[in-house]
């Protein structure tokens, strides 16, 4: 998905920009408040949800993203399994609960391949506080989404999460990004 945008971006109007921005804020709210089931409902049935690996490469060797290996390679069904797990009594990593914030910024939108779809790029800054620890864990990067309107509701039809770190400094990825 190419996200090269012209500036100023006249391809989407400010109302649409506002709507999609609010939708992504709403999504972040659900995740930060452990409403995983409600979050899962925001995904289309055909969602492709991935998180490739960032690597360090020399410029002559090309891309510094390895698409072949990921931290997430998910479908709606596998995400459902992950979501359900967080509601069991033995998902120890989230019980006691961590406290999380997804800061979503730099939202850029352009029309997608289909008339009801938009390609949306955003930056994320994720912070997490665990137990009584003083150190706050964090992870940063960007996301490339396809946001689709289904029966008048915004839904996420695809998400690629690209972290900036080659060695993650979060002790696990129990969160969704």
């Amino acid at each position: 998905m190419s996200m090269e945008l012209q500036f100023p971006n006249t391809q989407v109007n400010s109302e649409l920009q506002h709507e999609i921005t609010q939708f992504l804020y709403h999504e972040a709210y659900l995740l930060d408040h452990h409403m995983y089931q409600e979050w899962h409902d925001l995904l289309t049935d055909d969602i492709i949800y991935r998180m490739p690996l960032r690597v360090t490469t020399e410029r002559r060797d090309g891309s510094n993203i390895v698409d072949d290996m990921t931290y997430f390679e998910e479908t709606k069904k596998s995400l459902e399994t992950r979501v359900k797990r967080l509601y069991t009594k033995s998902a120890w990593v989230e019980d006691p609960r961590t406290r999380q914030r997804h800061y979503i910024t730099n939202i850029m939108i352009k029309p997608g391949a289909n008339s009801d779809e938009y390609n949306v790029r955003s930056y994320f800054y994720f912070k997490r506080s665990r137990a009584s620890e003083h150190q706050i864990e964090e992870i940063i990067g960007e996301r490339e989404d396809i946001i689709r309107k289904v029966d008048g509701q915004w839904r996420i039809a695809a998400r690629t999460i690209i972290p900036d770190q080659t060695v993650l400094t979060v002790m696990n990825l129990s969160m969704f990004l």
Partner: protein
Amino acid sequence: MLVKDSVNKQTLQKLKEKLDKGLMPQWAVTDKDIYELERRQIFGKTWQFLGHESELKEPGSYVTRWIASDPVLLVKTNSGEIKAFLNSCTHRGAHLCTADFGKKKTFTCPYHGWSFNLEGELVGVVSGKKVYGEKMIKDEWGLRPIPKVGMYQGLIFASLDHQAMPLEDYLGDMKWYLDILLGRSDGGMEVRGVPQRWTAQANWKMTQENFASDPYHVQTNHRSTVELGISPSDPNFASYGHQIVLGNGHGLSIMTSATGKSPYKYQTLPESMWPMFQRNLSPEQNEIFSNATVFVGGMFPNLAFDSPVHGMEGEMINYLNLRIWRPLGPDKVEVWCWFLIDKAAPEEYKEKAYKSYVGSFGPSGTLEQDDTEVWARIIQVSDALMMEDKELSYNNVNNYLLGEDVFEPVENFPGPGVAYPSTYTDNLARSIQKRWFELISKGLLDEEEDSQ
């Protein structure tokens, strides 16, 4: 007395007495002086896993790795040989190559421009003779080779110790089991992509034991995955089978099922591959492999493997995961996790295996997430004065008595090693600790040993 003294003969002697009884004093897990001994006597001496041959596809391919704090440049030379060098420029020591992987003919240092070829030879010196004169002998300034490099079934190892025993001797009886995991298919195994990497609050010994020798934690720690059908459905699945203690601190558990036979023949690998397994492995290896649900174990000190069946969409699928715990101090590890699958497997199965891996292990894995939680819990409390007490007046010792006096080694186990009739035993953990103690105390207790 609660004041911490440095590790001396007396503390080591006491440590040994406890270990012999299956008790691990808690102070020793994260003690800074012990850690320094580990760095030098274990990570500086043992064979260390660097990668898999499939990661170095052609001449000029390279990857950069670490042996604890030593940076390693691993290259495939023009003749196809695999060589390992200290990844540090010989001029002033700058980190030579910071990329994770790539392909090159020469490595040029960005500081003063010295360059080295795939053989590690110094081939370029900026201003050369003009500034160094005629007497500079370039041969003396090549990259420093890692003293020993060896390969077994595609696994590449190296050792910083010139006197390290041959790799095959080091692996010993583990080779028989590695042949099942890595040598069953024509063409061997292949790494997909690159290893996942992340840091965890953990002590490397505890993460190693968590994988190598502790199926007992599965029942509680990973219960959620049984509930959801990601793991085999019997909540006790991890207990059935055998724990096998091999030499040198190596060993594994081979899980089966309550009946002793796995419901997942050949770990769900396609039936079309079975004749190939039967051809490449001995009848004994086939007997074990065809009846196994999970192989999980470790090679001393910090390489662990897991070959389970899991699935996020209900279907159980096998894969091989290799991992090292690179110690970054007594309370931190950098985890490196490789996904491997048989080169000869059908593409469709490979794809499912990869998804099964990402869903179960690695930092987002539905099993591994809960492991990271408990590794951190051990670290969080490790500064306790009651634990620091080497006199042990608080009796702060970890319990390694699981299965003691309950399980006796079985006769006629088809594979090498000492096999116990359950995976719920601490026999392997204790043999890992024994090896660990031998190495950290080497030269510090010798006098007594000589006089015995």
